[in-house]
């Protein structure tokens, strides 16, 4: 029916072209466009937002180019095979092997980053320790080490250098743990491809710089500073510490403030404040510890 109508119209237009000329050749948006778009929009709204897709599933994706750019971005020369191994998680490699076996293809090797992770962790820990041992006692070195090698810290580092899209793993979105592991593996891969010195420089530039603007005494928090201080002073041969209440203000109110100084042989070791005498004493102990460390650093 509609076809007949259409052909009739065509016939008309051919027969009396001159009179139809203006109407037929004006450019306009057809009457069906708006309702169709509206219907499509309402359907899309009904479905809700689309789930996030991995970047590697996009049409414009070239894994080789991504790997090349990754190395260049960090200013490092990676061995291609080692880098890819560092980015491959064990679960992913196992799944690939299983799928290949099902199809009857023999994979040459099951390569994954399990060993690289442990090697990388060793390098990272060693570099941080060596750096902080120069100026700080062991407790602080350990605290900083723990802080810098937490899963969140290394995971966010991995994300920030662009590992999120190029990691080969089964889960999506990629977990922080995987990212942190892959970061360690990348360090190991760098060590194997360009040497230990480059890897240590890499750890310096990316991991240790995270301490920029941070105080080690905010990170290292002894649970009982006064006890720690007495032990520290006992080692030095000082046994008598005398806490004195130096000042107090607004006692028995909500804004109470006490100032406690720790003395030894009439010499001030440290001074601290707090809303109770006990807290002030602990703060003073922390201050004393910092002062002792500072003098140690100067004498070194």
């Amino acid at each position: 029916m509609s076809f007949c109508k259409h052909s009739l119209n065509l016939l008309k237009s051919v027969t009396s072209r001159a009179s139809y000329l203006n109407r037929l050749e004006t450019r306009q948006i057809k009457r069906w466009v708006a309702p169709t778009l509206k219907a499509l929009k309402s359907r899309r709204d009904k479905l809700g937002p689309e789930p996030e897709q991995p970047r590697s599933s996009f049409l414009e994706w070239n894994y080789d180019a991504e790997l090349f750019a990754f190395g260049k971005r960090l200013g490092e020369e990676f061995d291609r095979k080692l880098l890819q191994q560092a980015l491959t998680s064990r679960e992913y490699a196992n799944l690939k092997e299983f799928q290949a076996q099902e199809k009857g293809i023999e994979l040459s090797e099951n390569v994954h980053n399990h060993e690289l992770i442990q090697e990388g962790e060793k390098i990272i820990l060693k570099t941080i320790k060596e750096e902080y041992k120069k100026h700080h006692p062991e407790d602080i070195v350990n605290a900083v080490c723990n802080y810098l090698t937490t899963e969140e810290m290394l995971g966010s580092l991995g994300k920030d250098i662009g590992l999120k899209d190029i990691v080969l793993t089964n889960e999506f979105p990629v977990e922080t743990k995987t990212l942190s592991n892959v970061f360690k593996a990348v360090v190991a891969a760098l060590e194997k491809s360009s040497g230990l010195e480059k890897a240590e420089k890499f750890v310096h530039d990316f991991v240790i710089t995270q301490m920029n603007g941070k105080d080690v005494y905010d990170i290292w928090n002894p649970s009982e500073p006064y006890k720690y201080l007495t032990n520290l002073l006992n080692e030095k041969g000082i046994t008598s510490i005398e806490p004195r209440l130096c000042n107090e203000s607004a006692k028995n109110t909500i804004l109470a403030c006490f100032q406690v100084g720790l003395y030894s042989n009439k010499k001030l070791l440290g001074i601290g404040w707090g809303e109770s005498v006990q807290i002030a004493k602990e703060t003073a102990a922390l201050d004393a510890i910092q002062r002792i460390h500072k003098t140690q650093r100067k004498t070194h």
Partner: protein
Amino acid sequence: MSNSHLFLKPGFIKVPLQNGVGRYVCQLQRVVLKFCKNHGSSRGMRDFIESDLVNFAMDNPAVVVYLKPRRHRSAVIKAEYLNGDQQWLGCKNFTKEEILKWLNLLVTQSQYHTGTRIRKLWHTDNPSIQGPWTPFTFRDPKLNLASFPNEELAKPQDSNETNHEALIELFKKQKLDDLEQRRAE
């Protein structure tokens, strides 16, 4: 001044990864140039791809460049940053110089800045250098030697002189001055 900035998301200047403390990492991860092979509005993009793209890619090896021809759609640059930001930039009827200029902007910026209002031109994580104030911070040193109870210190700090007393004091002083002047004469 317009009020349109009220609808922008406020934020501070920030640098991801302590970038530049150790070494500089280009924050642009990849860029997709979308264009049509025969439409006129993509002409600048086609010119850019023909003449400048290889040089651009060589200068910025850290950025992955993808080309995506699409029929009869206008030219577009889609940029992806390391922090996950995605920037979509329409390039209809752009010349190749304009495209290069925009790409250079994308390469040098750290995130998708459009749509954020920078609250201050500086930012610090440690606003206080002196540390927290306590009631003992700027205490008068003479209190160190004072013995208590002390009548001088027990007095209220503001003077108790009333306006009336002050006027009498002024009057007396004036009288004395007059007397001295007469003596001088």
